């Protein structure tokens, strides 16, 4: 239903653009759009995928009993790093790694990593102790308890973290242009500088679409991959 509404709004905008002649302006940048979308997807894809893998891994690691002494401190540190504005993070990365795609990817990775770590850790910690106790009493080892009890029961919260993180990622990716990372930011920022609305929209519209599509995909994954018994979206 929300996606139908979005589709309607998109159609209305497309119609408006066509009628005002801006549509033709935008289409002049077709080649740039294709090239930059690919670059953009590389930034988002690599930083996002690495962040999911590393974030879930670190979150799980922090939730282990052996880490209990350091976990809270580490999460506090994560929260502090999260509060640094993303633009500042990118600037810091540029200082450390120079300009280009690498510092952009690392900067996006860090911005994306943190909500995933936090939600994985908190999600696993929120699994009731008596479930873990029952699992152990039934003869599950620590690995089995993690795979069959802790992760499935934390999955909804982990997915919520991933969705938030990817929204941040997709929303920040255009800024990568400012440190030489390329991507659709090139059209947006150049368009703003030149007061060239067609160019600006040629970057902005695909960025917006990407955000909607990414959120839709992760929303669907959350809906279908989280077991029904622990999925508030599917408990009618």
């Amino acid at each position, binding site marked *: 239903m929300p996606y139908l509404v979005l589709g309607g709004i998109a159609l209305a905008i497309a119609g408006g653009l066509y009628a005002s002649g801006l549509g033709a302006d935008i289409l002049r940048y077709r080649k740039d759009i294709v090239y930059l979308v690919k670059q953009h997807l590389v930034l988002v894809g690599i930083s996002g995928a690495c962040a999911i893998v590393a974030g879930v891994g670190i979150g799980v690691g922090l939730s282990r009993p052996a880490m209990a002494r350091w976990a809270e401190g580490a999460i506090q540190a994560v929260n502090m790093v999260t509060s640094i504005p993303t633009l500042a993070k990118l600037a810091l990365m540029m200082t450390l790694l120079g300009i280009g795609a690498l510092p952009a990817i690392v900067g996006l990775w860090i911005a994306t990593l943190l909500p995933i770590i936090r939600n994985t850790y908190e999600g696993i910690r929120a699994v009731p102790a008596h*479930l873990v106790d029952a699992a152990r009493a*039934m003869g599950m080892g620590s690995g089995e308890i993690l795979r069959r009890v802790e992760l499935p029961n934390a*999955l909804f919260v982990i997915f919520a973290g991933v969705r938030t993180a990817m929204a941040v990622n997709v929303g920040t990716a255009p800024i990568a242009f400012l440190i030489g990372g390329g991507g659709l930011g090139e059209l947006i920022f150049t368009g703003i500088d030149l007061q060239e609305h067609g160019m600006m929209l040629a970057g902005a519209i695909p960025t917006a679409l990407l955000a909607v599509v990414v959120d839709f995909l992760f929303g669907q994954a959350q809906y279908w991959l989280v077991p029904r*018994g622990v999925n508030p979206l599917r408990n009618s």
Partner: protein
Amino acid sequence: MIRLEALTRVYATPQGPVTAVDRVSLAVGDGETCVLLGPSGCGKTTTLRMINRLVRPSSGKIFIGGRDTDAVDPVALRRGIGYVIQQIGLFPNMTVAENIGVVPRLLGWAPARRRRRAEELLALLALEPARFLDRYPNELSGGQAQRVGVARALAVDPPVLLMDEPFAALDPVNREAIQDEFLRMQRTLRKTILFVSHDIDEAVKMADRIAIFRAGQLVQFATPDTVLAHPADDFVAGFVGSDRTLKRLRLIRVRDVMTPAGAGDALAAGPALAPDDDLRRAAALFLELGGDALRCVDPGGRVVGCVTRAAVAARLGGRDAAQAGAP
């Protein structure tokens, strides 16, 4: 058979060591239900959790079926012991069938066999398999969930069940029902059960033997009737309550105090007892009717004997009689 020998657990606390379980020794025979009874913090749950090694004993031995459990890998040991807890602990991410299939899956059973076993167990616990197999725990009532919890503990037919206040969270009506079902099942399954409870009525109902704990020590280990008739000390007497004689009534059958046929013939018609009734009904009828004797009739309505007030009093009061009645 389960045998505990001088089982002890000491916890280190900032205030110094605390002995949660203090040299507890007891033996539970095959097919028997032993209720560990006591106020909270008395060590009964810790004792239970040492048997499947969720808690490691500080000293002492546990033998299951003659085998020293120290020599068994804890994970293998736990897979062979059914475990039921008050919070039920069904995994909310798994269906009922998957929950029941947890231990079978750990033991490598094929999916079809796991499902068949889940069907069997649901039927045994009076839950219609077709309706419940694919439900999730959040779609069950409390009583249904605890039935599934019991089914899950029985999945691989372990000879030993550990139950930690399994029915304490249920409402009284449901609790009675599931206790009755469990007793009926236990008559055929003959599991060796250790059952933690803080409820004397539940203990009297479920137990072959009651182990009463106080501050980590076993203060009395005896049949329910003996515990009620002869509490070992003031603590046990206080714990079982001043109405312990009334509680004993449910443990004694009419047939045990009945004077056989002939004597009842002369009694007037009116409400009668059945030989399998317990003495609660006899006591109720004595109070209601005010007589000194009641007829006992068999299911066919034939008079088979009578129960007198004097016989009931002798059974309840006489020290010798009570001891003779203890198995």
